[in-house]
């Protein structure tokens, strides 16, 4: 647990943050909601909060659901959540939508498709804006996952837009990643080359009653065969579904369960979790280190440094070295 001096946080705020953490961990939903906001806002209070809840993380099954806009992700999330609720599981849902690069604002409209989940205490839905991140998830999505995990939800579902080769960050955040495809959505050959298809642990062909569904399934199978035997022994299944009619939902849930069992049995779960812990740790160090440096070199001092760099009087690499290790000469 971090001390107030290390965090550069007034101890009264630290006390409040720790109280919030306890409240969240004992199941208080308002504390959870406020905690996610603090994580999104960032800074020292966020670090204090996440530090306090970290020991309680690591239990939930973290599932990512991605695919092009209009593929039916939110509808599928709704159907899956209802299916799992009937089995007595609790679910936290994070729905990520893009932030406008022009205004910095966002319209977060995924909740509309999840109306039937409203009022159920076993479900918690949070909409997040990407806030400038381009990989498909927000900077604080990992933190929000940790908070939902720590709050005790059995399953944490992250729904995000993924249409091309760059929206693949979800695979790093989730243990099981579902890619939703829909027949007739443009050039299928093109879509087979996109990176998003490489991150799928499970493919869902939604709106499977549409024309072209069988052809799409065939193309996905052919693409998977082209890649050869998978290195980790998991052949991604292709599951047809009609989410809006609750068809295929039980099959998808079964495949998710099967994937989790495979991850456990093969040691993949521990390995991936360790990779994720390492990456997160590095990210946290980078943010904390930068913040500390910016606090030491604030305002005019920073501006002067940047002016020297822009005027070619100082190169940025030497400047960085000097900041990181004061006393290092050129």
């Amino acid at each position, binding site marked *: 647990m971090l001390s107030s001096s290390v965090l*550069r946080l007034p101890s009264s705020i630290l006390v409040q943050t720790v109280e919030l953490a306890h*409240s969240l961990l004992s199941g208080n939903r*308002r504390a959870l909601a*406020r905690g996610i906001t603090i994580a999104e806002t960032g800074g020292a209070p966020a670090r204090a909060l996440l530090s306090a809840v970290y020991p309680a993380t690591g239990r939930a099954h973290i599932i990512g659901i991605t695919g092009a806009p209009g593929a039916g992700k939110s509808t599928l999330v709704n159907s899956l959540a209802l299916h799992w609720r009937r089995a007595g599981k609790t679910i936290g849902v994070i729905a990520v939508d893009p932030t406008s690069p022009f205004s910095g604002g966002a319209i977060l409209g995924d909740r509309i498709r999840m*109306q039937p989940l409203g009022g159920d205490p076993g479900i918690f839905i949070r909409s997040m804006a990407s806030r400038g991140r381009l990989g498909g998830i927000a900077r604080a999505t990992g933190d929000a996952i940790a908070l939902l995990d720590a709050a005790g939800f059995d399953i944490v579902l992250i729904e995000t837009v993924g249409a091309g080769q760059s929206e693949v960050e979800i695979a790093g955040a989730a243990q099981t990643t579902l890619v939703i495809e829909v027949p007739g959505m443009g050039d299928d050959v093109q879509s087979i080359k996109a990176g998003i298809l490489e991150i799928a642990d499970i493919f869902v062909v939604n709106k499977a009653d549409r024309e072209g569904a069988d052809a799409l399934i065939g193309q996905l199978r052919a693409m998977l065969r082209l890649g050869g035997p998978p290195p980790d022994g998991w052949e991604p299944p292709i599951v047809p579904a009609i989410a809006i009619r609750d068809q295929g939902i039980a099959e998808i849930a079964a495949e998710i369960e099967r994937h989790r069992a495979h991850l456990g049995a093969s040691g993949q779960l521990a390995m991936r979790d360790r990779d994720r812990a390492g990456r997160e740790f590095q990210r946290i160090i980078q943010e904390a280190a930068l913040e500390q440096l910016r606090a030491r070199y604030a305002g005019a001092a920073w501006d002067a440094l940047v002016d020297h760099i822009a005027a070619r009087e100082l190169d940025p690499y030497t400047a960085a070295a000097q900041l990181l290790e004061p006393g290092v000469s050129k």
Partner: protein
Amino acid sequence: MGVAQPIPIPPPPSPYGVVYFRISQSCGKEREMDRKIRVLVAKPGLDGHDRGAKVIARALRDAGMEVIYTGLQQTPPMIVEAALQEDVDVIGLSILSGAHMTLLPKITQLLHDQGMDDVLVVAGGIISDADARTLMQQHGVAAVYGPGASTRDIVRYIQENVGTRKA
């Protein structure tokens, strides 16, 4: 650390103590902190179309806010539960059906029960001046806008009044 900002509002009275205090406000504007205004836009009751609500939602987005749009036919408990989960600063309610004197007090009462009096409640739609006064004076509604209101006025009102609600 920087100069500590004065705390604009006291923590609202709630069974959960001071934990809902907006921590970011008291820490000042640290460079890496990313605070956005979050607004829930909802249409309670039986309204059939939501063109006006969507216009407002877009205007708020264009002003840099994060708008959670929940669509048509929301009940007061659904709206308050969504506002809780999304930890919004503002709830914008659009009511064209005339049921505002039933729906709005229910919503503000539920917010009060949850200790969420710091959420700004802004209403729009077909609401008479007399009803608007009653809603603002007696039922915790912060502002009421009629059909001709400019989105710029609504945006500015929100920006100036977020986080200033008395408990």
